[in-house]
């Protein structure tokens, strides 16, 4: 019943006008992890797998139906034991764009305030049939403890001063995007300055780990109390002269001063009001004089250099309004890219763990 429907006769060869095809396709190595706890433990190729997967997801947000069915029927639970707006919303939206169901737990108004341990809370949530836990905690290592206590996937959404892997990935993605390296995620030759409260920053630690593995150079800048020389053991250099470094970098990542991590007691005493004082420097004005990215300092940057900030910004302290909203700023691009990166992390960890 089946036969060739066209007669084939030998003909002289013709030249074929070739359509352009992309030379680089999907990720090169298979993802094998159930959890994403940090960038320090990943290889350069694993980082590229995550980032290239994110590049495949970036386009979903532009569709009429902003959803793909990849995690249909899966459940993602947000366990945020520390405040967050952007990261939690971003993970929620990322999970929803993969067609997963999302449940939310915040520490206030839950059994956490009755003294239940973090791992017990996680185990109980997992027992309800959850496929991934997105965990934020004020203690470094808490998501790792949770991961050891459950069988489902765990994504670290920021733990203490340890790591914030998806923020590190979205910063790397944004840097690669600005420099036309979305095909390879090879950052060789690029130099990134991380400025400010480096010592308190999980964002800095994830950035340093990821950027250096992909070939970039990282310099941390701040007063000795916030950017101590000992940070150099992480594979970066440390400097205290912002104006000298700015003309040499392709990107500057302005960190928020994390007043709440400098003096936990003072923050509590301050009640509802956010405390803007720190034992790490004499006054915020003095800090700003040395390390804020002002409009004049931003002019020292190379043409094409980008300005990043993980948010939330202390406008007027570490970054000036006109810089944050200026043409070199990619701060909102970071937020957009964060969605694709989180989709990739959820997709790879959840669908990759089914084989195990």
């Amino acid at each position: 019943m089946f036969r060739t429907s066209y007669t084939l006769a030998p003909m002289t060869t013709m030249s074929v006008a070739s359509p352009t095809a992309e030379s680089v396709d999907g990720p090169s190595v298979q993802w094998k992890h159930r959890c994403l706890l940090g960038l320090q433990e990943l290889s350069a190729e694993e980082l590229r797998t995550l980032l290239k997967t994110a590049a495949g997801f970036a386009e979903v947000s532009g569709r009429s139906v902003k959803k793909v069915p990849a995690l249909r029927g899966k459940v993602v639970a947000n366990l945020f034991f520390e405040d967050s707006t952007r990261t939690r919303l971003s993970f929620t939206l990322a999970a929803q764009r993969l067609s997963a169901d999302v449940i939310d737990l915040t520490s206030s108004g839950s059994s956490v305030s009755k003294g239940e341990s973090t791992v017990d809370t996680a185990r109980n949530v997992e027992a309800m049939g959850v496929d991934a836990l997105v965990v934020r905690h004020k203690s470094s290592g808490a998501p790792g403890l949770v991961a050891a206590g459950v069988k489902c996937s765990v994504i670290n959404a920021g733990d203490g001063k340890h790591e914030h892997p998806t923020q590190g990935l979205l910063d790397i993605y944004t840097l690669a995007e600005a420099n036309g390296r979305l095909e390879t995620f090879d950052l060789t030759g690029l130099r990134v300055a991380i400025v400010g409260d480096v010592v308190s920053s999980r964002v800095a630690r994830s950035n340093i780990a990821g950027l250096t593995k992909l070939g970039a150079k990282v310099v941390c800048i701040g007063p000795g109390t916030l950017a101590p020389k000992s940070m150099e053991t992480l594979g970066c250099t440390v400097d205290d002269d912002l104006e000298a470094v700015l003309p040499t970098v392709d990107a500057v990542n302005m960190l928020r001063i994390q007043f709440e991590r400098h003096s936990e007691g003072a923050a509590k005493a301050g009640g509802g009001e956010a405390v803007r004082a720190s034992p790490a420097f004499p006054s915020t004005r003095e800090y700003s004089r040395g390390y804020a990215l002002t409009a004049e300092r931003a002019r020292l940057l190379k043409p094409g250099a980008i300005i990043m900030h993980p948010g939330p910004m202390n406008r007027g302290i570490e970054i000036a309004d006109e810089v944050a909203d200026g043409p070199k700023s990619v701060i909102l691009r970071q937020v957009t890219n964060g969605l694709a990166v989180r989709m990739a992390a959820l997709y790879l960890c959840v669908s990759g763990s089914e084989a195990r």
Partner: protein
Amino acid sequence: MKLIADESQVEKLLDALAADIRKGTNDPGKLAFIGIRRRGDVVAAKLAERLGVTDVGSIDITLYRDDLSETGAAARVGKTSIPFDVAGREIVLCDDVLMTGRSVMAALREILDFGRPSRLRLAVLVERPEREIPIQPEHSALKLEPGPGEKVDVRLMPQDEMNRITINPRE
């Protein structure tokens, strides 16, 4: 290895397929091609070129596969790129070989997430009989029925180094 179509015969098949598509088109101004990666996108580009159509997209169906949760380790996600609005267009979905119909189903679901085309057709270079889903092509250049233990191998430039269709023993 059984040679089914060499370089020039592949070109003839594409010519015939393009002519068949043109004949069945209601409004040539609305015509656009979308190919299933990888090789369906090459078929789409070659057909579009023959018909003078500039709107060509390619889709990666990984996330729409119905066996995604059975494939083991996370399947690799490639890029979907449809650089035009599909709404109201006459879309021709292209693939190199139609067999079970499952990739076509996944591709249809994905295209519909981009908008509502006025018409969707399926064009394939090679049609095989082993359907698992009721999907049939409007246009096919070649019908082949390889024996058990055989597979159809389509090579298309520039994805491959040559244009060729063969039937090979399955490894």
